[in-house]
């Protein structure tokens, strides 16, 4: 009885801290949706380093009609605004036409309003290997490894162009202004969702494999604590009932 009491007390002391941590993180995780924990992100440099997350690599950038289209990792930005996921890199060129900004990517040409709304994504001509876009008078030309195509006036379909191969060169990328580059470098670094951090704390994964074993041990300790507690309570009850 004395031995069981001592075991119960020491286990309780050891497991208390872990039990508290598991209870708090578990309580918060139970209300992920209400607290929008999957939408809140942490960007502390030490935390990103701990998770091994590096900032997105800057890609090419194109000045167009007073705006900048730039690629960071797979994402494309119009000035400081990220474009919808339907518009992904590689960014191969950009021109302006009919009040819209045209961004050439590997998947097609995204038509954007100057405030970043996606008007349409125009598929590339079948089999075209795109190199860039260029303005030709009032029109827009797609320059590809295997031909040239002209965009019609409604910006809705391509027609093969018989223009000579060497007559046009795609608009080249340009260096982003320093201020915009610095702002995007900060904004494009992915954060850690609070939900993820809580899950990793709850399971011990934040500390690697050793952390998981430690939390397993803590869970076992809490289970044993419950059993020893019940046993002690039962025995004490029996002793009291004895005459």
């Amino acid at each position, binding site marked *: 009885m004395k031995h069981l009491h001592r075991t119960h007390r020491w286990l309780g002391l050891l497991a208390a801290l872990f039990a508290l941590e598991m209870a708090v993180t578990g309580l918060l995780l139970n209300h992920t949706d209400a607290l929008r924990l999957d939408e809140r992100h942490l960007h502390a440099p030490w935390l990103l380093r701990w998770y091994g997350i590096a900032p997105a690599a800057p890609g090419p950038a194109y000045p167009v009609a007073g705006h900048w289209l730039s690629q960071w990792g797979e994402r494309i930005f119009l000035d400081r605004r990220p474009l*919808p996921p339907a518009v992904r890199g590689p960014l191969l060129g950009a021109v302006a036409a009919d009040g819209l900004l045209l961004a050439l990517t590997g998947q097609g040409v995204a038509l954007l309003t100057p405030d970043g709304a*996606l008007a349409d994504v125009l598929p590339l001509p079948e089999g075209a290997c795109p190199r860039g876009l260029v303005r030709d008078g009032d029109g827009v030309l797609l320059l590809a490894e295997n031909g040239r195509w002209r965009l019609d006036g*409604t910006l809705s379909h391509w027609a093969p162009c018989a223009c000579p191969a060497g007559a046009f060169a795609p608009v080249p990328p340009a260096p982003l202004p320093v201020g915009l580059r610095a702002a995007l470098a900060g904004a494009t670094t992915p954060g850690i969702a609070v939900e993820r951090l809580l899950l990793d704390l709850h399971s011990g994964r934040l500390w690697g494999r050793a952390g998981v074993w430690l939390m397993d041990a803590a869970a076992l300790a809490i289970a044993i604590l419950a059993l020893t507690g019940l046993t002690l309570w039962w025995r004490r009850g029996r002793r009291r009932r004895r005459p």
Partner: protein
Amino acid sequence: MTTRHTALLLLAALLAALPAWGKGTYLSEAAFLRQAFAGEPPPPRVLWLAGPLKEQVRRVLGHPYGRLRVRYWLRGPRSAWILEEIGKERPITIGFAVEGGRIALAHVLVFRESRGDEIRHPAFTRQFHGAGLRGEALDRPIDGITGATLSVRAMRRLARLALVLDRAVRQAPPAP
């Protein structure tokens, strides 16, 4: 390593790859249009989603369409629409041909989700053939598929959208 171990490893690798099987491009835009217009599609037209039409589209989808305009193809009584809607996380691209206010052809062109690609099978898409609108809803029930509920719902919404857009261009046909 025994034969049994090798077989188990192969089975595990196969099961791990299963969720990605459904993804892919099943029909190109050009091939769908050739089917819809017996080999010779007309040039595309553009419909801007603005004003009351924008609101109607929002009602049909339950959210705004991801783009400000829709390209479509129109010849005589037939129109063709290539539309996108998110099933669970990624957009599904589906082509519809509409004739006389009823769906004449439905094809899943690109499926990007990891599950629910059963909607691309003709046994499912055939249910849409002949479907029209009653108000803004389909005038017939479309049977679901177990495990593909969200993809089925996305396709139902797009079918309604194609019919609504067809009706819109026929009421006020824009200049080609």
